[in-house]
């Protein structure tokens, strides 16, 4: 076969780079309400199609459509709107605080608020999330005190993590929010293990795991699919596909597959794809998956299709690698605008009330911030003592750490 032509390496490229015109025409978006809702005990094989479509509830006019509609009352939806607005306003304030030097680092949720806010409302007390840094909506929607979140961000003396963790790496056992790791993906398999423990103990709690599109390439993602599949673990496996992993477009992680949801197919795991900017759809799909887990029917994989409208973090400037206007071209819209439109359409919300809610929330956030800043910020000097640096390495401090602590003068 000396006549074989030479091989060449194929490296996937995004549709557009800075200077190009954004183009999302490759994303097939079915009309809201058109995707069926299978029974929760339907076999994975019978719903393969659901990994290649997008489950959507709210249509362009703001009306709820189809089988997946109706999982929430209008009051609950209004609460969801408030949760998302709170998260966005909180993010704004913290982004500014970081720029002002009050902390070292921050990561926002711009455009992705619906996912974590809606998902949390499908869980029960006692269930455990294993989140990434981009699901603070889980905390907001579960009523975790915002002031405490800020104290963590400011690494001040009231930070429950004693200044040890980077900003946004919250932890709250009580609020079902597992301690965030800076190492991507490690939590994914831990969630599976946690849910297996619940099953071993004959408990009724379930776990929900979270990962970004880019991080699905990690080892832990695979281990989680293997273990969840093998032991029929009561866990919901969420993949948040926000199109980007820092500067890397999702095609590098996805490769030749059409969707991330389809990764579940090789493991016999029911896999759904949902409009991540549609609060109603996310909630409905979450509820469905949570019910599967709770009824011991096993894991569900959910790909949330969304767009990271902001920078990766305060250290990142996305204009270096994608068109500035890409975010506006994103076809699934803004999650807050969409719910607002829905509620206005239903006659239970108005522009007026929205402005008022915005002002109220802003006031509340500012007030929290004042209290948190009064305790301290990273640059104010009111940070946890070096003494705390030596605590919690072990339950009991071993002699060599006591010696080291003495050396620092404590």
């Amino acid at each position, binding site marked *: 076969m000396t006549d074989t032509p030479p091989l060449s390496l194929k490296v996937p490229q995004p549709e557009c780079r800075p200077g190009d015109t954004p183009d999302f025409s490759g994303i097939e978006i079915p009309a809201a309400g058109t995707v069926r809702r299978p029974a929760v005990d339907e076999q994975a094989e019978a719903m393969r199609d659901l990994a290649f479509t997008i489950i959507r509830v709210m249509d362009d006019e703001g009306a709820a459509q189809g089988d997946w509609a109706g999982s929430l009352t209008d009051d609950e939806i209004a609460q969801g709107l408030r949760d998302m607005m709170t998260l966005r306003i909180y993010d704004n304030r913290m982004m500014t605080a970081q720029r002002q030097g009050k902390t070292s680092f921050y990561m926002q949720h711009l455009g992705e608020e619906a996912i974590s806010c809606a998902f949390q409302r499908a869980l029960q007390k006692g269930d455990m999330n294993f989140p990434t840094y981009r699901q603070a909506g889980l905390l907001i929607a579960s009523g975790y005190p915002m002031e405490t979140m800020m104290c963590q961000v400011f690494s001040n003396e009231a930070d429950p993590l004693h200044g040890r963790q980077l900003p946004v790496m919250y932890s709250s056992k009580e609020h079902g929010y597992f301690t965030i790791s800076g190492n991507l993906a490690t939590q994914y398999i831990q969630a599976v293990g946690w849910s297996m423990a619940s099953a071993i103990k004959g408990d009724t709690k379930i776990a929900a795991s979270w990962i970004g599109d880019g991080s699905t390439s990690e080892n832990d993602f*695979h281990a989680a699919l*293997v273990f969840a599949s093998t032991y029929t673990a009561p866990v919901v496996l969420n993949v948040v596909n926000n199109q980007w992993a820092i500067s890397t477009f999702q095609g590098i992680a996805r490769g030749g597959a059409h969707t991330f949801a389809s990764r579940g197919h090789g493991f016999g795991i029911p896999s759904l794809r949902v409009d991540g900017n549609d609060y109603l759809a996310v909630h409905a799909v979450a509820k469905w998956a949570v019910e599967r887990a709770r009824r011991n029917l096993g894991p569900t994989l959910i790909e949330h299709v969304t767009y990271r409208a902001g920078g990766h973090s305060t250290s990142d400037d996305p204009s270096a690698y994608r068109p500035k206007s890409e975010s506006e071209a994103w076809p699934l819209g803004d999650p807050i605008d969409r719910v607002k439109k829905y509620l206005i359409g239903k006659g239970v919300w108005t522009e007026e009330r929205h402005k008022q809610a915005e002002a109220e929330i802003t006031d509340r956030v500012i007030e929290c911030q004042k209290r948190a800043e009064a305790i301290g910020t990273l640059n104010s000097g009111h940070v946890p003592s070096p003494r705390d640096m030596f605590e919690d390495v072990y339950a009991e401090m071993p002699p060599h750490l006591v010696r080291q602590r003495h050396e620092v003068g404590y």
Partner: protein
Amino acid sequence: MTQMTMIAAIQNAHDLAMARDENVVVFGEDVGYFGGVFRCTAGLQQKYGSSRCFDAPISELGIVGAGIGMAAYGLKPVVEVQFADYMYPAYDQIVSEAARLRYRSGGEFTCPIVVRMPTGGGIWGGQTHSQSPEALFTHVAGLKTVIPSNPQDAKGLLLAAIADPDPVIFLEPKRLYNGPFDGHHDRPVRPWKTHPLGEVDPGYYEVPLGKAAVVRAGQELSIVTYGTMVHVAIAAAEETGIDAEVIDLRTLIPLDTETVMASVQKTGRCLVLHEATLTSGFGAELAAQIQAECFYHLEAPVLRVAGWDTPYPHAQEWAYFPGPDRVGRNMLKLMEA
């Protein structure tokens, strides 16, 4: 007291722990129905059911990672990595996660997992069934690292590790599973029943973590060691006739510096001995601490005897293994210094 091999003692520790505390769960590759390739978990699935003792997929990451999740839930997972040489796929979960859950969550989530793994060579296992990676754990804050040298200790240390609120790496010198091997590979195999520490208390007891044992008292020289090398050290002492004190560390972290320093300050000479690769082995830490603490007592530099800085070879296994001859030669060298 009951005659037990190290395997039986370890199996027995699992059994007692599972009977006492129903939060104890045991899993790993081949540990369920079959009871482990070294039989350390034999009979547990049959006795406690397959949701408390089960086979795992061949994913050390998954085994440890799922175990961490279970520990965070409130269980006490005792997991097996089939050979220490295969712990690397799980290393991220051990280092970045198990070791730091308590710290990074301000004490809210903890990780009382025990990760067991057979370690060491001398079984013709070649480079991937012979490694001693303890130094890769001792460098990681948040981990405890344990390595027993006999059945009585193995059982008590494992029970203490299971009771411990923090992650414990439990290294089992596989060459000692069936007998107190002293490095004389050309002599008949000695079974545990010929050794006093093969007599094991059948009930529940703990050997506290962080306490070394002086397994041979001596005045002229201290040998600080652990695992298989404890028996090699004793043999070398007998054979050279040097009145050496042999310290079995049992726990590497936290280290029982008191026992170590007291011995070296008494003898003034110290040989540090392990099977792992010399460079950056745990012996380096021992030598660094001992020279710092005993500087004015030392009559010669601390001497390290260890595996060579090569992978563990197959055919040249006994040239690699720091046996009693090599140890003895170095003891003499140290006495002359």
